[in-house]
């Protein structure tokens, strides 16, 4: 009997809950119940009885016309998303995750090269025969090439992902077959995700070792540890981005975790805005100090300090948002 009731409930789920509709539903239920009980009394099995009752129910659209309702009530405004759509999206995500990861790595490498060359110039090991501005430019060339390459990777990835923007807002309906398949895939991805994040975290924790190692070779060598630190952090960030993006893609499709409600998006936006202002500002300050004060060898301290401050900020902000 429960099967019949839930069958009716499903049929009426999308209809307006007016008195008339509800009365009609009650009548239909009573009638179906009568039929079910009569069939059971005739010795039919539970399944046979339910089967006949449901097969003899008819078409709900017939009643809708009678009630003056549209035959097909409110077609879902959500964009359908099939399993093959999801597969394509995941393939694109994997590809762009690598590109974005490399892009971020290149940006960090750019900063690392800037600091490294700045140090070498400062200590008179490079660009001796160049003028003051020539020495500055020497550090800038690889920096800009690397940043430009990184940024073009971001732009290219953004273009590739643009058709999937609507997934962010959850305005799509995943095919039921796709849901179970993706849940399975997400489950089997979980260990790789854990491992990837673990490697990333380990690299971050180990990265300051570079500073200590270089400081062993003397006070003025300590500065060389920073580019190495940045490269290690760059590798770690690649791991975070690659595995994080894939996990996020599954969450997006299945509307889980951060995509279960819409708060996360806002958090991301605020952190994104802060990041987009603060990091270029830091770079500008570094360049300014370098060119005007010749502080290539010391001004790099901005980056690790800002890194820590920014990390603390986003952690606190996310924490507050969650409460």
């Amino acid at each position, binding site marked *: 009997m429960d099967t019949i009731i839930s069958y009716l409930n499903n049929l009426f789920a999308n209809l307006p809950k007016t008195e008339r509709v509800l*009365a*009609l539903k009650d*009548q*239909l239920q*009573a*009638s*179906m*119940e*009568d*039929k079910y009980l*009569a069939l059971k009394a005739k010795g039919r099995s539970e399944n046979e009885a339910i089967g006949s009752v449901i097969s*003899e*129910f*008819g*078409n*709900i659209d*017939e*009643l809708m*016309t*009678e*009630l003056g309702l549209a035959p097909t009530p409110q077609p879902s405004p959500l964009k359908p998303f099939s399993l093959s759509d999801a597969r394509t999206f995941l393939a694109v995500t994997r590809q762009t995750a690598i590109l974005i990861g490399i892009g971020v790595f290149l940006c960090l490498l750019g900063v690392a090269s800037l600091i490294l060359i700045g140090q070498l110039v400062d200590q008179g090991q490079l660009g001796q025969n160049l003028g003051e501005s020539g020495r500055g430019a020497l550090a800038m060339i690889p920096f800009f090439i690397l940043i430009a390459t990184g940024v073009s990777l971001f732009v290219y990835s953004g273009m590739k992902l643009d058709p999937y923007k609507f997934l962010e807002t959850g305005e799509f309906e995943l095919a039921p077959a796709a849901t179970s398949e993706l849940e399975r895939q997400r489950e089997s991805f979980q260990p790789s995700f854990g491992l990837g994040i673990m490697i990333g975290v380990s690299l971050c924790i180990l990265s300051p070792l570079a500073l200590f190692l270089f400081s062993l070779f003397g006070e003025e060598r300590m500065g060389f540890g920073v580019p190495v630190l940045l490269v290690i952090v760059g590798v770690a960030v690649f791991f975070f981005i690659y595995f994080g993006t894939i996990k996020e893609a599954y969450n997006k499709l299945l509307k889980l975790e951060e995509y279960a409600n819409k708060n996360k998006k806002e958090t991301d936006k605020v952190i994104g805005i802060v990041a987009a202002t603060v990091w270029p500002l830091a770079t500008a300050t570094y360049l300014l100090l370098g060119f005007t004060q010749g502080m290539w060898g010391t001004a790099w301290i901005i980056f690790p300090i800002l890194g820590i401050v920014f990390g603390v900020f986003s952690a606190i902000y996310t924490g507050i948002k969650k409460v």
Partner: protein
Amino acid sequence: MGVQSDVLREIISYGYEISRQIREKTSDGYVIRETTLYSVFARLENAGYIESYSGSVSMGRPRTYYRITDAGRTYYRQKCQEWQEIQDLLQPFIEEE
């Protein structure tokens, strides 16, 4: 519609009972669907040919009962007559075959 009105001619009845009688009278030849039956009820009731009221008799469950009205009875006779006329009209064509 003749079939339902036939059922309604003299007795007060409820949904399942009516569908059961239709089935019986046609010797399982016509199994009316729930949605068809209830859209017919709605149409007839709107036209004032039947009236419904809720009550509980057997099995203790409240049910909606239907009873034919005078207008319904007139309409029924009219339809029966129409049907008879159509039959008479078509009969020669059927016999010719």
